[in-house]
């Protein structure tokens, strides 16, 4: 499960780089901040895997991830992709909590889940929508 999360975070960091290219102004600035957060998340989860004696997955070249991204012809499409991505990230981390036996693992993943929820709220806000929309933030995969 941790390996899947690390791999997802690597992909998310590249995805945010692609999203940022389609955005302007303040939205682009937030996209770059979120991209850096995803990179830190990938590293934090990778550290947990190493603590268990495992080898975390490495990130792949950006062009490999890009093949799986939707077409982003304008800002609206980029923001829709960003919202989809962040909903999936929130849900993936909350789902993972149930499988993690150690407190340190759960703490890290719950803290990352909260940051992903913040990122989703930022996407809503820069899209002109309310930042906090639902009392229970549980996107489904």
């Amino acid at each position, binding site marked *: 499960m941790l390996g899947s999360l690390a791999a997802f975070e690597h992909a998310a960091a590249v995805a945010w780089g692609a999203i940022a290219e389609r955005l302007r102004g303040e939205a682009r600035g937030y996209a770059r901040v979120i991209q850096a957060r995803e990179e830190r998340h990938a590293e934090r989860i990778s550290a947990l895997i190493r603590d268990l004696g495992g080898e975390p997955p490495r990130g792949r070249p950006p062009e490999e991830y890009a093949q799986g991204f939707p077409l982003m012809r304008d800002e609206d499409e980029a923001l829709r992709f960003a919202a989809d991505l962040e909903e999936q990230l929130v849900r993936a981390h909350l789902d993972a909590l149930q499988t993690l036996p150690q407190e340190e693992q759960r703490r890290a993943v*719950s803290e990352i889940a909260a940051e992903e929820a913040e990122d989703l709220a930022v996407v809503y806000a820069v899209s002109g929508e309310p930042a906090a929309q639902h009392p229970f933030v*549980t996107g489904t995969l």
Partner: protein
Amino acid sequence: VSRDLSRRAALALPVGVILARPASAAAQASDVDQLERLLALEQRLQSLYETALARDAVEPGLGETLLAHEREHIRGLEMALRARGRRSPRATVPPPQVGTAFASRPAFARFAIDVETETVGAYQEALTTLRNTRLLLPLGSIMASGAQHVVALRQAAGDELLAPG
């Protein structure tokens, strides 16, 4: 990462149903304590937004939304407690502090950011130590909502939406 996984498919789980499932007897004592603590924090937030709305210290649309969310969080937590034998949850909420917190909308937003952040931290603590793993997803989804409240309040305060990393 596929866009086919549409936002329209992002539906809330039946959180109340999940929260209401009783845990094993051995796990209940500690988990109940944590649920009661979270309930007290949610009740504090509810009281905070009620007072802010009454004092015009928050934009009404935002205040009503956040208040409605807190009421849903409280409903879920109370269901979880009742399912664990707490017929009358013990949690009580102190009245909100009257003073500079409600002096202006930005001042209230910054005060509420602190309270929401504290509450998110309490959920993270609970998610780290809860014994009943069935509670993790619904409580995690409430924690995520709290994190989004912080962003909404930063926006209301005119602050950067994301805190410096």
